[in-house]
């Protein structure tokens, strides 16, 4: 987890999103503390050595998501080091004989969630955040978490494992601006006049897979549709003006605590 820090009356200023922590600030992940300089150095090594195959988000190899700790043979930091040094030729990964300081930096960057500026977001109380999540903020009207099933919006049971604080803050304040293209709302009208609304889960040339507004998985054949529209407007309202900065920080803390079934 990242440290609980409160930075910012300027929390609501979008420009603050790019704020970088003070030099020397550390990120703490699973009991390890990574210096910001190492994380930054690691990001440069990653960009030049790893991104060619793993992609800038670390998720371009099947079954591997470096940002979120899904690494085939590297459940621990030690194994991550072994994987980098030893390679995996069958999968096409070469050996990287990095000098020790570079290896440390690369490991720091990956373990820190590939997030160079990860501490610039206010993170409050998870307990108060949970109260908000289930009450005043109204999140459970659409989102589910920890098995509490709701409607159309993505399940958040492991959102803290998949997203960082900065991303969560951006989504809360500007839902449409942060919505991933795959999650865009779909409206389809069938040839017999029925309207189907839902959230996109997958799409190809001929079909689109959605979860509809009643929570059902549906696969639609585009050729059978009279109308098919994909919107870039998120149905989620912004919390800006509804919650104060401390409440937003509490909500982020709660969302980060949602790590999925382990």
């Amino acid at each position, binding site marked *: 987890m990242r440290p609980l820090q409160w930075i910012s009356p300027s929390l609501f200023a979008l420009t603050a999103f790019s704020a970088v922590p003070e030099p020397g600030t550390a990120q703490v992940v699973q009991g390890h503390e990574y210096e910001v300089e190492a994380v930054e150095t690691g990001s440069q090594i990653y960009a030049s050595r790893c991104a060619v195959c793993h992609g800038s988000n670390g998720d371009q*190899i099947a079954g591997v998501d470096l940002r979120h700790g899904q690494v085939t043979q590297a459940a621990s930091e030690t194994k991550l080091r072994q994987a980098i040094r030893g390679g995996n030729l069958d999968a096409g990964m070469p050996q990287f004989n990095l000098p020790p300081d570079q290896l440390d930096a690369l490991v720091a960057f990956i373990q820190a969630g590939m997030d160079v500026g990860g501490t610039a977001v206010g993170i409050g109380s998870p307990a108060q955040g949970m109260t908000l999540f289930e009450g005043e903020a109204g999140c459970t009207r659409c989102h589910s978490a920890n098995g509490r099933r709701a409607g159309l919006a993505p399940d958040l049971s492991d959102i803290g494992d998949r997203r960082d604080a900065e*991303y969560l803050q951006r989504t809360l304040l500007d839902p449409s601006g942060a919505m991933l*293209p795959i999650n865009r709302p779909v409206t389809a009208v069938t040839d017999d006049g029925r309207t189907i609304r839902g959230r996109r889960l997958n799409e190809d040339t001929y079909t689109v897979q959605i979860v509809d507004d009643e929570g059902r998985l549906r696969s639609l054949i585009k050729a059978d549709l009279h109308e098919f529209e994909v919107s870039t407007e998120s149905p989620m309202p912004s919390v800006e003006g509804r919650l104060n900065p401390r409440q937003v920080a509490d909500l982020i803390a709660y969302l980060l605590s949602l790590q999925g079934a382990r």
Partner: protein
Amino acid sequence: MKTWARLALSLLALLHVGDLGAQVTFERILDSDAEPENWLTFGGSYTGQRYSLLNGISLDNVEDLELKWIYQNRVAGLWEATPLVVDGIMYLTQRPNDVLALDAATGRVFWNYRHRPSSDTRVCCGSNNRGVAIHGQTLFMGTLDARLIALDATTGKEVWNIDVADARLGYSITMAPLVVKDMVVIGTGGGEYGIRGFIAAYDVDTGEEIWRFKTIPEPGEPGNETWEGDDWIYGGASVWLTGSYDPELNLMYWGIGNPGPDWNPDQRPGDNLYSESVVALDADTGELEWYFQFTPNDGYDYDAVQVPVLVDGEWGGEPRSMMISANRNGYFYVLDRATGEFLLGRPFVKVNWASGLDENGRPVQTPQPPGEPTWPGNQGATNWFPPAFSPRTGLFYVSVWDSYAVIYRREADEYVAGELFTGGRFRTLAPVPDAPGINVGRPGPINNWTDAVGHGVTMAIDPQTGEAAWRFEQFDVTDSGMLTTASDLLFTGGREGYFYALDAATGEELWRANLGGSIVMAPITYAVDGKQYVTVISGNMMATFGLRE
């Protein structure tokens, strides 16, 4: 029986068996049109057209295609190989460096040769191999650890096995070799490791080197002045796709890859010859006859390795020998293949790294300010996937990535032997931060970048104008190669796992099968006992189709 008599008889027996085997002479490959039931070389013929004279499967009966057999492998990762078919036997490679011989009618395996690449192997972009070449009774495969291996086509046993280059420095081989005369010719990858690329020809019988063309000239040689200082030593210019060959001109054509470091052209001022060029080499000596550079001082990794497709026809009312290619940099080119003269160049996607080409085909470069997107993106407007050309329709077919851009960041990089040497980073232009970007291959069954980040087009380009005659749109990007036939069919696929037969003249979809895995190779066609088959690889499965009987 006396020993000498037994020996003589054994020798006679050996000679006899040899006569029965597949003797693929140079003349047979030259005249591949005379035996369309076979697929004798990577591009189907020396032209690289991937145009088959088989017409049993036609516009009228293509709907009757059905699955005949499947071969599955257990190797993860992209499978980009083109199989060869010789007299009913298919020769196929699979990761990392396996060769298989299969019965082309049933898919059953005769033998499986395995080469385990050395642990020194360094490959930038996956343990790819794109196929074998054949001469006489011998198959040739380049390996990830930069070896060239000759195998007996009947037994699958090694005949010879040589070092082509030092894998510890990042040299690797992923392309199918090209056999010309009594030579097997190959180039090496490694453009992300600061190698110095080359193309080399070896004696098919002994593996002895006959000639070597270095893709970066050294001091004293013409072209070295396009590099400063020692930049040429680590300048890349790899060769990782198979070339083509014109027997009348006795010239080979090879596409050359990116200069190193990839994304920081400031670090290597000059045109950086012969990176991002096509070179025409004398087949007997390897001497350079002419070159044409598509992207001087490239800062975008626009490898110009795409198979040069050789086409004969009229240009401006006069007969011409031409070379055509759709380049990763977004421009479609027509050159005179005897002289290298630039005849035509037109963008086939949105391009903003150049504002156009001058009268000699040299781009007027317009580098984007830091933080601004460049079209096309790093994976290019097209890439390794082999295109096709039909002399009947006069159209060139290619898989294209459309509406795809990346934002580059140049960074100084220091050459360290055997380490990646790429000079910066890039990220895909996406509508929101953190959205997944398109990369080499698809990480799973969900297209989570969607068309908001880029999509695929099967494009038919008229070489006379450089304009699209038709477009067949796909939701995801496509890395599929092309196959076209004398019955005016075009076979291709995409990342979504659909395998298509299109009308080559119009682009109309005639038939498709959902095979479920990405198609990242070019389908082939062949015939056994008079029955035509079409073979495609999708994911970890090779599927062969034929007409319902």
